[in-house]
């Protein structure tokens, strides 16, 4: 649109010593050149700004909730306001932040670079996805202004068909955001199928691409079901179609089935791309070839497929035949196998590696720890007998947040720090980055570990007041206080993280083309990349041949070894 033809590219500096004068950030100027851009990198940057804004908004809601719970009885808000706050925290975090988070920001930026393409397959669809995200965000803002939302982010019927709060604007927002997500998914599948560089076979793709591919499958197959569910909910409120209303022969539990048919796979939309980020980071910062490439790749696809078959575990207490409950429980247990395969392969990659504790690796290590806790506590919830006890308690809240904050969000931060020099052309202050990672790790644990204890001892989720429970459980008070202090610590940590990153944009040193010694294609173009990514189509080799690169102190970055291994595509180890 507003860009000029990409004929006059400044070739990136051959030694990677500094950012080229003409890059995607400087290629065109003005607000229109951003809002109407078709460049995947600019779309990713705009997504990043919007998504971080949503994260801060959702985080403020979370802090208000935790402040209210710091002591029993009313603290800072009314009961109704509390219901609105936890609902909006969930809805904003899920629909505006974490679903688009990694795919639309890091995926959009990195995927075409990783496969050696000039853009995603459908740049206009990509821009439409961003615009739909913005429209969805507007719907949520409208929701805030016309009565809020107090249904919980799950919109469960029959309450959601009767509450006076603004269910329809919020539901339409989620509907529009669903299409935003579908467009991203369609784009990524077509890009991976059709735009890979010469030499890049399926099994020479970076594992982040496999993860995005598996994510895109879920986005394409699951999100439309959420769309129709939300339309039915809106039709229920406006027209009284009765599909979910027993008054006319409908069934509220059917809503739960429809909702979780999307929303369980959706948690894999949130975590799978994060696992892809961790695969890249662990290999590069261990200076070792990834271990078990094919197992990690296949396990992404296995999670995507299996994820469609376990939605019933959200409804063990909603009324379901014992046979169905047993089948869903067994399938839930089996879906943990591919996740565990990934974790063991990451550990094996680190084994005897030359591990550097750069900021992205700090996040990756935090991920392994937190995702381990989050994943293993999921097994308690997949077990029928214990789930009856733990259902709708803080145990579920803690499990979910260990996986989502400790998993998806930490992986997002890992990837953001990993690709930050490529995105901005600047290096952040490493010490501050590490401090941010440490504080985040401590904050998450302090917030959510007490919630495991609270939940296992019977503290129900979504309660405004727990004064009545203190007679039998006086220590609930301290645990709630600890959790709230953890939330404040997390807020401090996020402030440090964002402050470090923003500081680097203005004061950071210029980044070399390859600051970490990665062997994937994005490190072959300059930091930040030129408008067209690659002056000529690159040829792909082994994406994890990190030992072909050595550190050059002169540029504070990595360059290909002067006496390289035999040229041409490197053989992929066959031991896996």
């Amino acid at each position: 649109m507003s860009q000029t033809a990409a004929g006059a590219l400044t070739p990136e500096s051959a030694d990677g010593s500094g950012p080229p004068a003409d890059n995607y950030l400087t290629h065109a100027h003005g607000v229109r050149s951003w809002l109407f851009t078709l460049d995947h990198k600019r779309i990713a940057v705009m997504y990043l700004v919007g998504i971080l804004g949503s994260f801060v908004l959702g985080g403020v809601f979370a802090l208000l909730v935790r402040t209210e719970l710091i002591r029993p009885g009313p603290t800072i808000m009314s009961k109704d306001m509390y219901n609105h706050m936890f609902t909006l925290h969930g809805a904003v975090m899920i629909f505006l932040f974490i679903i688009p988070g990694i795919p639309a920001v890091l995926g959009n930026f990195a995927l075409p670079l990783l496969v050696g393409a000039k853009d995603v397959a459908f740049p206009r669809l990509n821009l439409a996805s961003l615009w739909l995200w913005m429209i969805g965000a507007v719907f949520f803002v409208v929701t805030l202004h016309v009565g809020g939302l107090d249904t919980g982010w799950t919109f469960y019927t029959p309450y959601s068909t009767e509450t006076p709060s603004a269910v329809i604007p919020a539901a339409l927002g989620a509907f529009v955001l669903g299409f935003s997500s579908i467009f991203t998914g369609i784009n990524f599948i077509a890009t991976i199928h059709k735009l890979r560089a010469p030499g890049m076979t399926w099994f020479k793709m970076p594992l982040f691409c496999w993860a995005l591919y598996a994510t895109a499958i879920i986005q394409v197959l699951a999100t439309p079901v959420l769309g129709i569910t939300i339309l039915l909910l809106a039709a229920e409120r406006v027209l009284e179609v009765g599909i979910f209303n027993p008054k006319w022969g409908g069934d509220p539990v059917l809503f739960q089935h429809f909702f979780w048919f999307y929303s369980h796979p959706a948690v894999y939309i949130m975590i799978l791309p994060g696992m892809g980020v961790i695969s890249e980071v662990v290999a590069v910062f261990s200076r070792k070839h990834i271990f078990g490439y094919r197992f990690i790749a296949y396990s992404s696809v296995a999670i995507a497929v299996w994820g469609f078959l376990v939605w019933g575990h959200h409804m063990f207490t909603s009324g379901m035949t014992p046979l169905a409950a047993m089948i869903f429980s067994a399938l839930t247990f089996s879906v943990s196998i591919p996740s565990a395969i990934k974790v063991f392969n990451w550990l094996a990659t680190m084994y005897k590696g030359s591990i550097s504790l750069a900021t992205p690796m700090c996040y990756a290590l935090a991920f392994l720890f937190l995702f381990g806790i989050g994943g293993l506590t999921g097994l308690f919830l997949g077990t029928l007998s214990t789930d009856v006890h733990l259902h709708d308690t803080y145990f579920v809240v803690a499990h979910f947040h260990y996986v989502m904050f400790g998993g998806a969000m930490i992986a997002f931060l890992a990837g953001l720090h990993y690709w930050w020099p490529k995105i901005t052309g600047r290096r952040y202050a490493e010490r501050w980055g590490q401090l941010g990672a440490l504080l985040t790790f401590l904050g998450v644990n302090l917030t959510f570990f007490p919630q495991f204890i609270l939940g296992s001892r019977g503290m129900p989720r979504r309660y405004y007041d727990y004064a009545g429970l203190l007679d039998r459980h006086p220590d609930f008070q301290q645990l709630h206080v600890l959790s709230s202090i953890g939330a404040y610590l997390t807020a401090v940590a996020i402030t440090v993280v964002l402050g470090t990153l923003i500081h680097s944009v203005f004061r950071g040193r210029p980044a070399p083309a390859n600051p970490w010694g990665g062997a994937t294609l994005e490190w072959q173009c300059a930091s930040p990349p030129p408008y067209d990514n690659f002056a000529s189509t690159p040829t792909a080799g082994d994406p994890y041949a990190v030992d072909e690169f050595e550190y050059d102190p002169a540029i504070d970055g990595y360059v290909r070894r002067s006496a390289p291994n035999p040229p041409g595509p490197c053989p992929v180890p066959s031991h896996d």
Partner: protein
Amino acid sequence: MTEPHAALAAQPADHPPHLAHHFDTLRQQFEAGKLGMWLFLVTEILFFGGLFCAYAVYRAIHPEIFVFAHHYLDKNLGAVNTAVLIFSSLTMAWAVRCAQLNQRRGLVACLAVTLVCAGVFLGVKYVEYSQKWQHGLLWAGWFKPVDEPGDPANAPSGEHGEQPRDVGIFFSIYFLMTGLHGLHVVGGMGVIAWILVLAARGRFSSQYYAPVDFTALYWHLVDLIWIFLFPLLYLIGP
């Protein structure tokens, strides 16, 4: 940087006008577009899938409602609409062939006939809907059948046994499924009209006919969904 890949070092001058900058060949662009279109159709199937699922659930739980209520639908009008849509799929497929063979007049004519068929379909649908509206045969919350003895559209109440409970849920599903399908017909008409204008301006050729092809894929899906809706809603049991 690695050395340029010889075969793919495309010069900008080689780029045909319809080839986007990030594709190397028209063939690659066409295949990517076609894959994207198929993926979109998959999302459409799952979108309707929710309603088909609701249909299956309620028909399994309350078969008597479906047997009783389907007599209120006009099989003849449904059959006419089925024939009209299948014929429009033929003309749409023919339009793609015309584009591939550089036959501009044929392309315009086929698209125009498809558009007319879609209009006829919606006209018939309007007649059906307005009959239901007059007789109060609406979705569950608004279901208030008007008792008019001698009216064929309202006759079955005695003829087919007692009215079961919650008959309205059948009409909820009927209106939701045919309504959503109707919206897709309207959307398809918009796209076909747009393609028609471009075709009249001579925008398509044997080198570049992807938009016609992709629109046809969409239109066939809209047709196919109706082919499922017709027996499921109109041709139930005795």
